[in-house]
Every structure is written in structure tokens, then in C-alpha cells.
């Protein structure tokens, strides 16, 4: 529908000579979903924060300026300073790497373990399928936060441990999705044809089943990424993630909690950053999900 629309529009404008080029650019710009562009912009910015934090701020995230404690946002300190005189914006920028790497590790654990489980279950069927899927049911039966906490108490506190704990809760979802995709594609005619023309199971899996399930897995990964950022910030807030001087976003909010009455920016701004990043991840996930056939 939209493709024919833009096609008509393009053929229309090319007839009108000089201004056609500009019109086309304008039309393309108008067609661009603003929310999606913003979402990508947010994610790119945060990735850049994680990769090259020194480009964005001149302040040290761990070293405060004496006498500059709890200053409200100003030209010198864009987002104000905390109780030790550290620049909040610098801490947010330097904290991005902790939240992002944690979320990536968590989603990685869920994606790899969960997809493997789902692939095996969906391909093997029969008894293996039943046993694996019951196992997934068990993972789902324990509320996610309690499962994370059980793993945290086992592994100990820390960024990586928190990431693994969050990742373990993502396994069940990935396993279910992957299995349903495998079962769906398996029953498709072209897969039957591939088997019929002599394809081995592994080859059909690699050439046909995996590529066809990729879109929904990628869309789900994006959602899980946003969700993992939320979970990791929650664990950080509870004090089970990175230890205190680390500027992890959840921990920033936890530290700002004692200054609610005097320094609103310490809790408000990091939370807004988390919400923005999660919203961006969800928006991107939806756009991927929609573009799939």
C-alpha cells in the first residue's frame, strides 16, 4: 500500500521539471516515521556515549569538584552535580557502557541458550521437545525478578553477574519463539520441497529454517534489549549490580534517592534516560516486526 503510494507520488513529481527533485526529498522526508528516526538517533547517541564518552563531556565521572556539591543544572554543569560534586551528565555518559554492555550480555545469554533450546526442541520433536518445553515452563513458573535474585545470590553481586541473572530470565521467551518459528517453517511447502530434493536436516535448517525465522527473532531481541536495560537498572538500584563508584544508571538513581527534597535532578534525569532508551528499543523492535512479511 505505502509502496504504491510513494511510487505514484514519485512518477507524479518527475513530470514537473525543476522543483521535482526537491519535492521528492520533501515527500521522502514526510514519509519518514519521525518516531523511528528519533529512536535510532537515541540508540546511536547512547552507543556513542558508551564507545567514546570523552567526546561528550570534559568532566571526570568519578572525580568531584570540591565545593561544587549538589549544584542545580547550569551552563557549567548541564545536569547539575551530585553529593560529591561529580558532574551528573558525565556520570550518565560514562555509565552508558555499563548499562549497554550489561543488556547486551543479558540478551546474548538469552538469545544463544534460548534459541539453541528452541531449535533443538522444534527440530527433534517427540520426547526431547516435550522435556525441553516443560523445562521452559519451569523457568516461566518462577517470577522473573525472583529467578534473577536466585542467580544473583548464587553468583554474587556485580555487573556481569547481574547480566547473567537477567539473561537467564530471557531464555524461556527465546526458546518458545524459536521453537514456534521452527515448527512454523518446518511445515511450509518449500521446506518440504527442500527435504524432497535430498537436503539433509542440518542443511535445510541452515539454508531455510534459520533465515526464515530471523526477522521475528531480531524483533524479539530488540524488545528484550530494552527489557534487559530495565531489569539491569532495577538490579543496580537494589544494589546487586555494579559496586558504588560505578556510574551505572540504576545505581545513580539509588544514590540520588537521599537528596529527593534538595536535588531533584539526581533521580529524575537518569530515570528519563532509561525510559528514553527503552522506548527507543521498543519502537525499533516494532518497526522490524512490521516490515516482516
Amino acid at each position, binding site marked *: 500500500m505505502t509502496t504504491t503510494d510513494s511510487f505514484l507520488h514519485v512518477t507524479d513529481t518527475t513530470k514537473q521539471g525543476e522543483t521535482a527533485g526537491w519535492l521528492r526529498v520533501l515527500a521522502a522526508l514526510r514519509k519518514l516515521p519521525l518516531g523511528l528516526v528519533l529512536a535510532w538517533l537515541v540508540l546511536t547517541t547512547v552507543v556513542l556515549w558508551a564507545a567514546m564518552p570523552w567526546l561528550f563531556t570534559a568532566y571526570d565521572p568519578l572525580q568531584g569538584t570540591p565545593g561544587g556539591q549538589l549544584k542545580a543544572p547550569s551552563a557549567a554543569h548541564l545536569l547539575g552535580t551530585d553529593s560529591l560534586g561529580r558532574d551528573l551528565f558525565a556520570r550518565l555518559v560514562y555509565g552508558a557502557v555499563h548499562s549497554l554492555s550489561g543488556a547486551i550480555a543479558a540478551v546474548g545469554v538469552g538469545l544463544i541458550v534460548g534459541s539453541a533450546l528452541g531449535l533443538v526442541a522444534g527440530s527433534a520433536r517427540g520426547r526431547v521437545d516435550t522435556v525441553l518445553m*516443560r*523445562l521452559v*515452563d*519451569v*523457568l*516461566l*513458573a*518462577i*517470577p*522473573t*525478578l*525472583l*529467578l534473577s*535474585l*536466585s*542467580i*544473583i*545470590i*548464587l553468583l554474587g553481586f556485580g555487573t556481569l553477574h547481574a547480566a547473567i541473572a537477567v539473561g537467564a530470565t530471557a531464555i524461556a521467551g527465546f526458546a518458545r519463539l524459536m521453537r514456534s518459528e521452527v515448527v512454523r517453517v518446518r511445515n511450509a511447502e518449500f521446506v518440504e520441497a527442500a527435504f524432497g530434493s535430498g537436503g539433509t536436516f542440518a542443511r535445510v535448517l541452515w539454508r531455510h529454517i534459520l533465515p526464515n525465522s530471523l526477522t521475528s527473532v531480531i524483533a524479539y531481541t530488540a524488545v528484550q534489549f*530494552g527489557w534487559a536495560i*530495565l531489569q539491569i*537498572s*532495577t538490579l543496580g*538500584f*537494589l*544494589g*546487586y549490580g555494579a559496586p558504588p563508584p560505578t556510574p551505572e544508571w*540504576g545505581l545513580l*538513581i*539509588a544514590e540520588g*534517592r537521599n537528596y*529527593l*527534597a534538595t536535588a*531533584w535532578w539526581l*533521580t*529524575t534525569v*537518569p*530515570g528519563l534516560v*532509561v*525510559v528514553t532508551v*527503552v*522506548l527507543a528499543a*521498543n519502537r525499533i523492535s516494532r518497526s522490524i516486526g512490521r516490515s516482516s512479511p
Partner: protein
Amino acid sequence: MTLYVFGRIGQALLVLWAAFTLSFVLLQALPGDAVLIKFLSPDFGLSADQINEIRAAYAVDSNIFVQYGRTLFNFLKGDFGYSLQAGVPVSAQLATNMPPTLRLAGLGFAVAVLLAVSIAFLSSMAPFAWLRNLLQSLPSLLISVPVFWLAIMLIQIFSFRLRLVSVINPGPWESLVLPVATLAVPISAPLAQILIRNIDEIRTRPFIAVARAKGASEARLLWKHVARNAILPALTIAGVLFGELVAGAVVTETVFGLNGIGGLTEKAVGNQDLSVLQAIVVISAAAFVAINLAVDLAYPILDPRLRNRAGVER
């Protein structure tokens, strides 16, 4: 039909047993010896004999399979062992901490349902397109908000800026307002999402067109034809909502300093109090399994279309 019911109950018990086993593996079999770690610390100044005595009292010196059997048996009896930190039976701790959590969770859930239903129906009835769009995108915004941050923001806005809810010596109901509001948001968001999706989907069905053609008003359409069909499938996410409720309770009780199961959980993790966490995990899993079982058994009764199919299945 009876076969289906018994099969479903058996399956639920199997999942519950497996969840218990998983919690045992995570919290009792793997982490070495929590008792040893605690009492070896020099603060206690205990001799090796005394430590052995304590370990025998906690029964952590025996074979892992014996421990497993004993723990399973005790859990079935409702005996969850002793809290390492507090030195009292876990079941006693749970009993004192349960009422505040049940009150918070009950109120939070009720408000959440109210909120979700209002968002969902207003998003399809509201007079202006921009308002409908706003309401439709509200759940995805709410789902992206960290619960702990929401709690802090509510305190900041309503207690410190507007001074509507007192933070110092609030009344019994006043102290519940902000926690309930906090807890309601993460539960209402997924519920509103599924309701909105169902309403949109059902409005495109032919029977709606028929009802409209026969002259039904929009209000009648919505309440008589759409609402019933849209609300029923929301039951299927009851288990998910329970998970949100538990996580929300842990965070909410931590932020507001309430002494409930959530606060107990947070302290148990901080103190490495494994038996407390294990009891909470197993009880939550039991509640989750029971909720899903109830939904599965009630669904064919509520939805006549499924009555025959359920009998055929399994």
C-alpha cells in the same frame, strides 16, 4: 473432560515439583555452604566443634540427596527451615510479612485493572483522534518506565513538591496511596496492551458489522459485543501479571520501606539468606502454577466455544 482436568492438574504438579528442584539446585545444592560462610566469620568467635554442631542443627552436613528429600518433605509440610539471619522459622517470618503484601497487592491489582480497562476502552471511544492515539501509546510508555524510578518520582512530586502525601508519620491508608499507585502501573500496562489489541481486532469482525447494520448504537456495540469478547482472552496473561506483581512488590516495598514479602526478599538477597529466598521462590512458583491452572480450568466454562475442544485435547 475429567481426563483433561486431571491431566492438567498432574501437569501443574509436575511443573511445581520441577520448580522446587530448580530452586533447590540454585539455592541449596550449588552455593557451597552458606552456614559455614556465615558462622566462620570472626565476629562470632566460634570453635570448630560449635560450628559443626550448628551445621548439624541446620542439617547441611548430610548427603545432598538426603538434604533434597528432607527439604522436599519439609516444604510439603509447610516447614521452610530457619532464616539464617533472623534465627526464626521462615514460615513465621512469612506469616508476619504476608498481610501487608496481600493488602498492597490486592489494592494494586484492583487499581491496575481499573486503569487498564479505562485506558483500553477510552482509547477506542475517546472523541478526538489525537486523544485516542495518545491513549493507545500510553501502555507502551508505561511499560518502559522502571518501577523503582516511578516510585521515587511519585514521592518527589506528591510528597515533596505538592505536599499532598505526608512522608512523616502518614496514616495507615495515606501510606498506601503511593505504593498502590506505583504497583498498579507495571500491571496495568501489559493488561491495557492486550485489551487494546483485542478490541481493535474484534471491531473488524463481521458480527460487529452485522450488529451495526441492525442498528446497534456504538455504546451497545462496545459493551454488549466487543467488551465480552475482548476481556476474556486477557485471562491468559494472568500468570504474566502475577510475575509483574511479585517484581513490583519487591521494588515498591523496598523503596517505600514497607515490611512485606517484597522487603523480606530484598533483605534475604542482601544477607545471603538462602532459605528465606527459596521459600519465597517456591511459594511464588506455586501461586503462578495455581493461577494458570485456575485460568485453564475456568476458560472452557467462561467460553462456551472451547467447551468441546477441551474435552478432545489430551
